């Protein structure tokens, strides 16, 4: 197939309007306030990460989720503390969604000894087994297969834990995606696959290289799964879809595949200016920013501006404290590069 337009000159994909009925979704107000706080945490954390990158304190690469917070928040809020998450390299939000404290996450981005992984993982491999975050994976699609394993394990051990695995739209074109979906369907595994369709891979539109309109949802029927597309910029919509897929999985009903449509406000990573996006598209999606929309919804539901301001200020304090914690961390000792290759804590390959 010849792509029928010049690079970056594809048709703008504009967001759908907010579903006016979503305000009536049966979600307790307390849960909604949690969703608001989670989104604030993710947004303010990512902005700080970006600032620290500009100050040359964040080393290596990092991939931000600004604009995509409603998905991680909605899914994370629907999970139980003992459930498992498999995140992507764009995984700061996936990680924060499980209650992992900001300080160690930020310190990991700075490569400090008080980082979540003591400097051995970095931005793309955030993990907190304590909080059910079973790793963030940077080889596209691998985590979908690994998630089948933790789901299989829960089924084998007879617990009712479920597993959530995130992926980008680009991951739907790699073999691991298809192997994982079939495997999960065949063994009726308690796993929920969540595709964050932000319309782009790195610097190329997903629509230019995919045989179907909805990269995840239009493949679901091949594995006997329902076609699920949700507004990924509406935390309530995501929360409802995730809750129903999770309870199905918990009750032995097998896997689900959710495609959540969204947009990243920034570039793919670090300093990518995102120039490959057509005129009008970014502006339209900035207008559909999930956080001001949710703020407005909570006001309509009777929450006071003062209460929402308070949440924002609390989160700002949390980010500030995390920054102090991270900047205050010592660099790792060089000899720790030689630990934890093996279960005995060492790296020796000979006797």
């Amino acid at each position, binding site marked *: 197939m010849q792509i029928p337009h010049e690079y970056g000159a594809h048709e703008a994909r504009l967001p759908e309007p907010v579903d006016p009925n979503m305000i009536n979704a049966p979600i307790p107000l307390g849960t909604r306030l949690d969703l608001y706080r989670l989104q604030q945490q993710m947004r303010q954390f990512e902005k700080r990460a970006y600032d620290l990158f500009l100050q040359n304190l964040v080393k290596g690469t990092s991939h931000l989720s600004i604009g995509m917070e409603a998905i991680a928040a909605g899914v994370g809020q629907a999970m139980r503390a003992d459930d*498992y998450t*498999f995140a992507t390299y764009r995984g700061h939000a996936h990680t924060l969604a499980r209650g992992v404290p900001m300080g160690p996450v930020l310190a990991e981005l700075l490569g400090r000894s008080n980082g*979540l*992984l*003591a400097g*051995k*993982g970095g931005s793309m*491999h955030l*993990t*907190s*087994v304590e909080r059910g975050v*079973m*790793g963030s*994976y940077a*080889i596209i699609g*691998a985590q*979908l*297969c*690994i*998630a*089948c*394993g*933790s*789901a*299989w*394990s*829960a089924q*084998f*051990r007879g617990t009712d834990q479920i*597993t959530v695995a995130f992926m980008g739209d680009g991951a739907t074109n790699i*073999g*691991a995606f298809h*192997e*994982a979906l*079939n*495997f999960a369907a*065949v063994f009726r595994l308690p796993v929920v696959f969540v595709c964050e369709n932000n319309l782009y891979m790195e610097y190329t539109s997903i629509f230019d290289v995919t045989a179907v309109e909805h990269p995840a949802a239009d493949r679901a029927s091949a594995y006997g799964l329902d076609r699920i597309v949700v507004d990924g910029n509406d935390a309530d919509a995501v929360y409802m879809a995730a809750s129903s897929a999770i309870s199905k999985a918990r009750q032995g009903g097998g896997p689900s595949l959710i495609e959540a449509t969204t947009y990243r406000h920034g570039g793919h990573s670090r300093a990518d200016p995102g120039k490959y996006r057509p005129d009008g598209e970014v502006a339209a999606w900035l207008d559909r920013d999930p956080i001001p929309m949710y703020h407005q919804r909570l006001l309509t539901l009777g929450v006071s501006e003062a209460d929402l301001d308070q949440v924002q200020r609390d989160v700002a304090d949390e980010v500030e404290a995390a920054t102090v914690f991270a900047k205050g961390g010592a660099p790792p000792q060089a000899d720790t590069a030689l*630990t*934890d*290759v*093996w*279960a005995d*804590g060492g*790296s*020796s*390959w*000979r*006797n």
Partner: protein
Amino acid sequence: MAELTYREAIAYGIAQELRRDPTVFIFGEDIAGAGGVFKSTVGLLEEFGPKRVIDTPISEQAILGAAMGAAMTGLRPIAEIMFSDFLAVCWDMVVNEIAKIRYMTNGQVSVPLVIRTGNGGGSRFGAQHSQSVENWAMAVPGLKVVAPSTPADVVGLLAASVRDDNPVLFFEHKSLFATKGEVPSGELVDTLGTAKVVRHGKDCTIVALALMVPRAIAAAEVLAGRGIEATVIDLRCLVPLDTQTILSSVSETGHLFTVEENPRLCGWGAEVVSIVAEECFWALDGPSIRITTPHVPLPSADVLEDAVIPSVERIVNVVAKSLDA
């Protein structure tokens, strides 16, 4: 004590672990109902049932991904990759995921899993079903690499692999399946990273692995007839590598030969030779010599395959020529 084939020893060893530990389970393509394409898992489904002995789709990435996820969450999976050549299809899982997850999570995660796979040539299967790829695995930090040559070692080293808290690649040699050997009765658990001196001789040290071990032993018998007494070491594991056994033998004999089925470049023998060169150079009385498959893919015809994989005759000739006998 019972005499078992190498093939039977595989099922016997797996059964020992399935009986002992309820978190052990085994899966792969055609391994349950059919008992494995090499008939090396016969009887397991009947004894342990479909929850613990499972046929999978032809999805090598999903097989190893599932093994990893299960190992991270409290189970001890044994996954089969039918032919080791197919590891190339799921090498991401082995190299980027399984081998690295403990390190990159600063030790938060353990992956106690075993990947069993049919390895090696001699079956006239051609270039995509005959390779010896244990040296691929050896090159990756975080993987233990085991390749037994006898039925007893299959049982003992498999038990050690299943009980190890690290990921282990367990290479079963296809040309050894029909060979027989005594397997002691009762629970059998060996130690990873220990080589075995299978023949003592003062004149040279021949280090071999898997199918090359019986060939090295046979060559040593022929050499004895020509007045050369060779020590033969069955390496058994590439990682951890039993350098002590190698170094102490070479210190006594002064001559080192490696017999490797892998193609020449970067075979495991290159590492052995370099360790000997660094650490017991002054004990050497001559060049260290690697006897390997030449750097070619494996051909199919019997005459061609036999011409490239190190044979008893070639080992005898190389050693004899080098020692000037």
